[in-house]
């Protein structure tokens, strides 16, 4: 567990250093994710301790964003003032996103089986 956490934190640290150093708009942890993925592909998969720790963390991902979500109490005014714009934007964009990806992907898969 400590070794797995060390690997995860080092990837995050390296990603953050890269982000801060280059001014890339991609978050440090995402760069860390890409680095870890590259490492896993090169070494042929995660060691059991890394896999277990990753699964353990991801199992409770829902808990991890509670503290940030509670921050909504500081944004109540902004939310209330723009609630209609926000709701319409979320409803329409989510419907469009589901449709575009779903329709395109099934088109690709159909083409593949016909070919």
């Amino acid at each position, binding site marked *: 567990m400590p070794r797995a956490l060390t690997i995860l934190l080092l990837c995050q640290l390296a990603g953050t250093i890269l982000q801060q150093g280059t001014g890339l708009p991609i978050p440090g942890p*995402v760069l860390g994710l890409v680095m870890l993925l590259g490492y896993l592909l090169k070494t042929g998969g995660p060691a059991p301790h890394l896999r277990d720790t990753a699964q353990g963390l991801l199992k409770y*991902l829902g808990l991890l964003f*509670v503290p940030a979500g*509670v921050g909504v109490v500081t944004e109540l005014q902004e939310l209330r003032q723009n609630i209609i*714009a926000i709701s319409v934007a979320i409803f329409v964009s*989510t419907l469009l*996103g*589901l449709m575009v990806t779903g329709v395109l992907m099934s088109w*690709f898969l159909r083409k593949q089986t016909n070919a």
Partner: protein
Amino acid sequence: MHNLIPLPLPLFHVWAYLETQPLLGLSATLCVWEAAVFIDEWARHKAFTNPTVLSILILATLLLATGTSYKTYFNGAVYIHFLLGPATVALAVPMYANWAAIRKNFIAIFVSLSAGSIVAASSAMLIAHAMGAPRTVVVSLGPKSVTTPIAMGISQNLGGQPSLTAVFVMMTGMFGTLVCTGVFRLARVKDWRAQGLAAGTAAHGLATSRMLLLNQTAGAFGGLAIGLNGIVTSVVVPVLVSVFGL
């Protein structure tokens, strides 16, 4: 602090002491989470009893009712919040597990996912902008389709408000979960792989966990869409923001 219920003096001293300590925010978060998980199981995992949404609602209500500032609460909750970074990195592990499936259909997955991601992010920002929402709100809406830790990171980098983004991510997930099966029926998307990919791309883990209840393959494609869209959105949203001149 203006508590709704006046506390007797010794209790007030205990409260005043605890407010300066991380213990209170930390234990409140964990207790509320356990209660929310219990309610969710009891209600058989409905879209609106999602433990994250429930916990946020309960804790926000508690803060407002007790007149506790978010800063005081976060003083303790930060220890949980910190784990978001390593958890984001950890997403590489399930992505690796799905790598064979990703490689086999790489172009199909990459094109469909990127198209959906760009359409969702740009329509959300353009609609909110057209309806007169201020820049913070518009920018915070951009990454709302991806998983919370990544969405918050993107929002922060662009001058959005990460906690607003967290709320938008939740709203998107709940709405996506409610409508996804209906949309797929309407648009005649029958393949489980396409359904899972679309659910994970447009409405991250919440919709993916719904797909997982229906079909294993759909769940796996949802899982890979979460990670892949996190990367794609990190690149796309900053570009869209500058193209739209937001």
